[in-house]
C-alpha cells in the first residue's frame, strides 16, 4: 500500500452516516453514564417501572403517594401539602408529639430530601415541616427493580461493544494464525486442518458456547473468549484461501531462497498481504459477535446481574412486554442501530474492494 490510507468509501453518504451513528453510540456509552445522574445499579424503590419521560420526577401523583406512605409509617396525619419550587411545605398532625428523628423517613424515600421543622405548635402535636424535593429525570424510564434504564442501556452498550471488539480480536488472532499456517503449509497438513474446521462448523455453535460457558463459568472475560473461539472459522477459511495464492508469489519464493524461516515468512509476507480481506471480513464479524453475545445473554448464559448487556436488557423487556414496552424498545433500538450501522459500513467496504 502506497501513501496514507485513503478511505474513499466514506464518499458514500450512507456509510458516512453509519460511521457517525457508531461514533455517537460509542461516545454516549463511554461518557453518558458519567452525566446521567444515576448509577446503573442504584435501586429507586419509589420509582418502579416508571415510563420514559423528559420531565423530572416526582410528579404530583408520586409526591402524594410518597407522602401518604410516610404518613402511615410515622402514624401522623399530613395536611396541606404546598409545593414551592423545589421544596414542599407540609403540616403534620398527630396525637403524640412528633419525634424530630422520625422525620428521617422523608430522607429515606427516593422522592424527598432532608426535612426541617419550621414551626411547632401544641407541644409538637402540630408541626410545620419544610421538605426538599429530589428532582430526578428518568429519560428512558426505570426497570422492574426501579433502576434507571438510560444508564443501564449505556452500561450495557459498553459491555456489548467491549465484548464485540474483544471477541472479534480473539477470533481474528485464532483465525488468522490458523488459516495462514494451513494455507502456507499446504498438502496433508492443510487438508487435516481444514477438516477440523469443517467438523467444528457442523457443531451447532450455540452448543459450543454453552459448553464453553459451562467450563469457564459465567465469567465476563471468558464469555468473549468463548465467543471468539466459535467465530474464528470463517476467518480461518478466508485467510487460508489468501495464503494459498500468496505463497505462489515470487517474493515468497525469494524469501525462501534467502533462508527465511516459515514463521518469518508468515509474519512478514503472508499475513500483511492478506490484510485487505481480513479487514473486510472484520466488519462483518463485529456485528455478528455483538449479536451472538446478546443471544447468549438473552438465554441467561452470558453477562450476570447487576452488570448488564443489550441482550440481558432485551430479555428483561421481553418478560415485561405487557405494560412496559419501553424496557424492550430502548435497548433494542441501540442494538439495532449499532448492528445496522456496522452492516452498512461493512457493505460499503466490500463494495469498495470489488
Amino acid at each position, binding site marked *: 500500500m502506497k501513501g496514507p490510507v485513503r478511505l474513499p468509501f466514506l464518499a458514500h453518504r450512507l456509510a458516512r452516516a453509519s460511521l457517525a451513528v457508531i461514533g455517537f453510540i460509542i461516545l454516549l456509552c463511554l461518557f453518558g453514564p458519567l452525566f446521567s445522574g444515576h448509577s446503573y445499579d442504584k435501586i429507586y424503590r419509589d420509582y418502579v417501572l416508571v415510563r420514559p419521560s423528559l420531565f423530572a420526577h416526582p410528579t404530583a401523583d408520586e409526591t402524594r403517594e410518597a407522602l401518604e406512605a410516610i404518613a402511615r409509617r410515622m402514624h401522623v396525619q399530613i395536611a396541606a401539602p404546598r409545593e414551592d419550587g423545589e421544596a414542599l411545605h407540609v403540616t403534620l398532625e398527630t396525637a403524640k408529639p412528633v419525634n424530630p428523628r422520625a422525620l428521617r423517613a422523608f430522607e429515606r424515600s427516593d422522592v424527598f430530601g432532608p426535612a426541617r421543622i419550621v414551626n411547632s405548635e401544641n407541644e409538637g402535636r402540630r408541626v410545620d415541616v419544610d421538605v426538599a424535593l429530589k428532582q430526578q429525570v428518568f429519560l428512558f424510564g426505570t426497570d422492574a427493580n426501579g433502576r434507571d434504564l438510560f444508564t443501564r442501556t449505556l452500561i450495557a452498550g459498553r459491555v456489548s461493544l467491549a465484548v464485540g471488539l474483544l471477541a472479534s480480536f480473539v477470533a481474528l488472532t485464532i483465525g488468522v494464525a490458523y488459516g495462514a499456517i494451513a494455507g502456507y503449509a499446504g498438502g496433508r497438513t492443510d487438508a487435516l486442518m481444514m477438516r477440523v474446521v469443517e467438523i467444528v462448523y457442523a457443531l451447532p455453535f450455540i*452448543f459450543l458456547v*454453552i459448553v464453553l460457558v459451562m467450563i469457564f463459568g459465567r465469567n465476563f472475560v471468558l464469555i468473549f473468549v468463548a465467543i471468539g473461539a466459535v467465530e474464528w472459522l470463517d476467518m480461518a477459511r478466508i485467510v487460508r484461501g489468501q495464503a494459498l495464492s500468496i505463497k505462489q508469489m515470487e517474493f515468497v519464493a525469494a524469501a525462501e531462497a534467502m533462508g527465511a524461516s516459515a514463521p518469518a515468512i508468515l509474519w512478514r509476507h503472508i499475513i500483511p498481504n492478506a490484510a485487505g480481506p481480513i479487514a473486510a471480513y472484520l466488519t462483518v464479524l463485529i456485528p455478528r459477535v455483538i449479536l451472538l453475545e446478546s*443471544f447468549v445473554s438473552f438465554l441467561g448464559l452470558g453477562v450476570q446481574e447487576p452488570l448488564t448487556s443489550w441482550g440481558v436488557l*432485551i430479555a428483561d423487556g421481553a418478560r415485561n412486554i405487557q405494560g412496559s414496552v419501553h424496557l424492550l424498545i430502548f435497548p433494542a433500538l441501540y442494538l439495532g442501530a449499532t*448492528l445496522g450501522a456496522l452492516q452498512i459500513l461493512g457493505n460499503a467496504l466490500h463494495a469498495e474492494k470489488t
Partner: protein
Amino acid sequence: MFRFFLSRVLAAVPTLFIIIMLAFFLMRLAPGGPFDSERALDPEIVKNLRRIYRLDRPLIEQFWLYLQSLAHGDLGPSLHWRDFSVGELFAVALPVSATLGAKAMLIAILAGTALGAAGAMSNSALGPRLVDGAALFGIVLPVFVIAPLFQLAFGLTLHILPVGGWNDGAWQNQILPVTTLALPQIAIVARLMQASLKDTLAMPHVRTLRAFGMPRSHIVTHALRAAFPPVVSYLGLAAANILTGSVVVETIFGIPGMGRYFVYGALGRDYTLVMGTVIVVAAAVLLFNLIVDLILAWLDPRVRFEARPR
C-alpha cells in the same frame, strides 16, 4: 450422481462420530455434576446414583458404553427428568421443533427467492433498494426482538393471535413463531437472490437469449438456473441459523420443543440429554448440508465432476 452422493454420505459419518466424541469429553471437562442441587444430597445417595447411571466408571468405558447404546438407537436415560429417557423426551419435542423449523425454512426459501427475483428484475431503481432496505431490517431486528414485538402487536394489542403456547400445533399458535423464525432468513435469501440474479442477467448467455428475442419467461428460466447456486449454498447456514433461532423462539413463545432441553440440559449438567440434542442437531445440519450439496450438484455439473476421484 450416485457416487457423488455416496462420497458425501461417507464423509459425513466420521464427522458425526468426531462431533459425538468432542461433545462427550468436552462436557465432562466442565465442573459440577448432574446431581448438584441447591440442597446437597446425601453423599451415599449421590454415590448410588452415580453407580446406577454408571458415572463412576472410567471415562473411556463410559464413552464405549454410550456408543454401544447409541448403536442400538438408545440415547440413554435423562439425568434430570429421571422418569424419562432422552428418547421419550425427544419423541414429543422433536416433531414440534421440526414442524416449526421446516415451515420457517420453506417460507424463507419461497418468500426470499421471490422477493429477490422481483428486486433483480424490476426496471425501476426503487425495487432493488427496497429489497436491500428490507434485508437490512432482517439484520437490525434479531429474532429475540421480533418475537416480543409480535407478541405485543398481534397478541396483546390486536388480540388476534395467541401470545404463546403450542396447543397441539393449532395453526393460530404457529403463525407468530414461524414468521419470527423465517423473517431474518427471508431478508438474507432475498438479498443473495437479488445480487446473484442481477449478475446472471448480465451474463453473455442471457444476453444472447435476449438478442435472439426469446420470450421473457424463457430468459428468466435460464438466468434462474445459474442464479440459484449461491442461494442454495447459503441454505445450509440458514438451517443452522433457524435451529439456533428456534431456541430463542421456543423460549419466548413457550413452545415445548427441543430448544429448552438445550439450555436446561447444559445448565443442569444432564450429560445424556445434551449429548442427545447435540447428536440430533448435528445430524440435522449434516443432513441439510448433504441435501444442499446434492441440489448444487444437480444445478451445476461442474460440482459433480470436481468431486469425481481422478
